């Protein structure tokens, strides 16, 4: 019964999106106000259908209706409720349904917030969103249908993939990923609409920027959550392995970051219009490429879903989207005329351009590293993989350069700068560079790259903190109260600018934490008998013994270790091996003691309950926790920049001029 209703709802979403897309494009051509109104209604209709279908699936999972094929595939009566809900996106069909749900939400919200404005662009934008939606509804209705009827329903199901049940982070990572990934459809729609109309007017920049910023924030957090999950669950002490699917999530993030910066150049100087539109479109295309990578079984990865027939379908869509985009760009890019040019090499806009080129270079580096094995295989019939050394040696210098530009760019003025201005802008932050690199050297950092990163980070931190707080001090000195200087001046009127520097500060912390935690990591392999104490990486580790803990869906063999420093016990760590009912091999689960200074991480490689012995790997990495914290701040900073937008719109004319001048 539920299966039939589900299929009907999916069919409804397919019809609403396909018809809505056609109506919207027609309305864009004829500039019909009625047509636009109907396009909007169909957009809401699509959202209603797909969201109800998803909620129905959640209901089916919760009541264990095993006559629904997806529930029979991933459901289980013996797992906790949160795992049941998470099962929605744990397998191929459900994850695409969830994709539709997120797209429906985005389309409804974007349609609602742009109603009555941007009428030149809105019809085509809605058309692009709904055309994308129609494709995904087609996938759900056909090759990846989760609502098939199981003729003889089983009494119980296997439950989702155990790796996904192993940690709460798994509940959080995919929703954020979808909020990021799917959200890039919205700016893609605006960019296509601008090209179709042959005009990237000033008024469309705001929705373009904001609709890009929101998924960017989610995407940042999702990449971090994925890394954190790998760190907490996989037990090899790292958080990033240049796995094809990790790369797939990074690629659109890189182009989106570039686009967020180039939009600012369009706003300020009226240049880089075609470039910006291309970056926004590339972001969406990379999202579809990433979806193909995870869903087709072409790449071998932790993330791969089982092989299925939907690979060719997604590839077809990617091909169509590429052809559409290229044709649109070729036909219209020359109409987006630039209104000026870059005046000096040492100017803010020149630095923006360098930033953009670096991001694009990074994108190509990662893309080639990811796809290269396939190219080799296609040409020579041989398999290979590009190892970590390729990515590390290519990405590290580019990352360091970006950090450098992050410091230098905001220090330089827009337009032509005099020699004096440049000196005044670039010399004082060198103090920050020397101090931070010196500090690093004093605590024992000897790696050249890390010291360079610290120096660039110190420079950037000086500039960023200066941009954040110096204007406030000027106001304070002029006798203004703290409330007006900080809250009004920085948080309200300079909101966008202040938010962007929160993000920059977070990036500085993040890159430093990555560099230091990687280069200063200590590891040791230890073998214990019960009661034994050994010293490793600054701590005394005592093996207290083994406990077996039975839970409904798994049995955990827990090794208990006391961690002490200078005779004082700091923590008890309990790494374990989880044995799931449906799996032959146990899955290890490390245990981490985190502090602001560093992490102490224990992972079991072997545990013997009969003789009470255990072999463990210990990783001591400084500053790791700052990676997670800083990325959360990147997301929060970006959201803060978006949030009180409505108040600004009501500000008086003179104030908004001041606001614009402060917006950099």
């Amino acid at each position, binding site marked *: 019964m539920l299966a039939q209703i589900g299929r009907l709802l999916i069919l409804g979403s397919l019809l609403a999106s396909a018809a809505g897309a056609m109506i919207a494009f027609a309305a864009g051509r004829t500039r019909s106000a009625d047509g636009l109104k109907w396009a909007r209604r169909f957009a809401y209709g699509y959202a209603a259908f797909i969201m109800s279908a998803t909620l129905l699936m959640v209901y089916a999972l919760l009541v264990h209706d095993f006559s629904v094929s997806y529930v029979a595939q991933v459901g289980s009566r013996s797992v906790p409720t949160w795992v049941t809900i998470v099962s929605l996106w744990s397998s191929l069909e459900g994850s695409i349904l969830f994709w539709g749900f997120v797209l429906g939400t985005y389309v409804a919200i974007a349609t609602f917030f742009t109603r009555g404005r941007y009428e030149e662009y809105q019809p085509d934008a809605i058309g692009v969103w709904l055309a994308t939606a129609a494709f995904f509804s087609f996938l759900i209705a056909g090759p990846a249908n989760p609502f098939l009827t199981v003729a003889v329903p089983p009494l119980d199901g296997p439950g989702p993939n155990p790796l996904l049940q192993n940690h709460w982070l798994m509940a959080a990572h995919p929703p954020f990923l979808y909020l990021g990934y799917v959200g890039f459809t919205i700016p893609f729609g605006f960019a296509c609409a601008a090209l179709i109309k042959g005009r990237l007017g000033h008024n469309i920049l705001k929705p373009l920027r904001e609709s890009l910023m929101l998924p960017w924030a989610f995407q940042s957090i999702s990449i971090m959550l994925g890394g954190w999950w790998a760190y907490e669950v996989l037990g090899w002490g790292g958080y990033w392995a240049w796995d094809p699917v990790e790369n797939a999530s990074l690629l659109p993030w890189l182009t989106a970051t570039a686009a967020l910066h180039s939009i600012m150049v369009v706003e300020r100087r009226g240049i880089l219009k075609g470039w910006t539109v291309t970056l926004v479109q590339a972001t969406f295309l990379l999202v579809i490429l990433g979806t193909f990578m995870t869903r087709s079984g072409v790449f071998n990865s932790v993330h791969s879903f089982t092989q299925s027939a939907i690979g060719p379908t997604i590839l077809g869509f*990617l091909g169509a989207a*590429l052809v559409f985009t290229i044709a649109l760009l070729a036909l219209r890019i020359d109409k987006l005329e630039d209104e000026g040019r870059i005046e000096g090499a040492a100017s803010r806009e020149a630095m923006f351009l360098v930033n953009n080129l670096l991001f694009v270079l990074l994108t190509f580096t990662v893309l080639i590293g990811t796809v290269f*094995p*396939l190219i080799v295989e296609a040409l020579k019939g*041989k398999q290979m993989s590009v190892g970590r050394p390729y990515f590390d040696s290519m990405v590290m210098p580019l990352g360091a350069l970006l950090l450098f530009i992050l410091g230098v760019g905001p220090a330089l003025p827009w337009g032509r700068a005099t020699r004096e201005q440049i000196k005044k802008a670039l010399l004082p932050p060198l103090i920050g560079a020397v101090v931070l690199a010196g500090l690093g050297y004093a605590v024992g950092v000897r790696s050249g790259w890390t010291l360079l990163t610290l120096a660039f980070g110190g420079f950037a931190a000086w500039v960023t903190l200066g941009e954040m707080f110096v204007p406030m001090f000027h106001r304070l000195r002029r006798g203004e109260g703290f409330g007006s200087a900080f809250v009004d001046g920085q948080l309200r009127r300079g909101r966008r600018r202040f938010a962007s520097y929160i993000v920059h500060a977070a990036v500085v912390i993040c890159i430093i934490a990555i560099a230091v935690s990687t280069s200063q990591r200590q590891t040791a392999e230890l073998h214990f008998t019960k009661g034994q104490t050994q010293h490793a990486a600054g701590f005394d580790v005592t093996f207290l013994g083994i406990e077996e803990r039975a839970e409904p869906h798994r049995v955990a063999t827990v090794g208990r270790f006391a961690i002490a420093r200078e005779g004082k016990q700091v923590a008890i760590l309990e790494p374990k091996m989880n044995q799931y009912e449906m799996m032959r091999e146990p899955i290890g689960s490390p245990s981490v003691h985190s502090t602001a200074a560093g992490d102490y991480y224990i992972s079991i*490689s072997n545990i013997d309950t009969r003789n009470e012995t255990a072999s463990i790997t210990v990783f001591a990495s400084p500053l790791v926790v700052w990676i997670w914290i800083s990325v959360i701040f990147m997301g929060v900073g970006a959201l803060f920049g978006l949030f009180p937008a409505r108040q600004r719109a009501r500000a008086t004319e003179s104030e908004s001029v001041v606001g614009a001048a402060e917006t950099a």
Partner: protein
Amino acid sequence: MNRTVLIVGGLITAALIGVLFTGLGTNPNEIRSPLIGKPAPTFALREVGTGNTIDVNQFKGTPTVINFWATWCGPCWEEHPILVANARRLQPNVQFLGVVFQDEESKILGFLQQRGSGYPTVVDDAGKTAIAYGVGGVPETFFLDRNGVIVAKHNGPLSADDLQANLQKVMN
């Protein structure tokens, strides 16, 4: 009409879609090495720790397992204990040999001291041996029979079962 965009974009589209299309339907774990059934390329490399030269020809007459690995490769850590345990159990009836590439000798030594070693390890400094064997990524393992002919190849980390199955092929 902007021809540059059209041409560059068209080329990127065609290349990307073409490559991805050929990738469809292949199993990334399945191995198709042209070397299978052929005599293994010979090499003589420096042993880690001792500095002695080890020539692969000296193992003729014994089935040989050649494992390409590196200390920076996570999956290699995973399979290392399995290889060591089997080497200790089967030598001298089967010869195990580790070939490390793109790595530093001090790191290799540290790794082997911490995790144990049960068979010789040589360093492929210039990566020539890895190229001769068509190694694209580590770990990759080759199984040679008594006559030095490559009978099987495994990509990725070996589980105990994988190793057993492949050893059957060379020991018969």
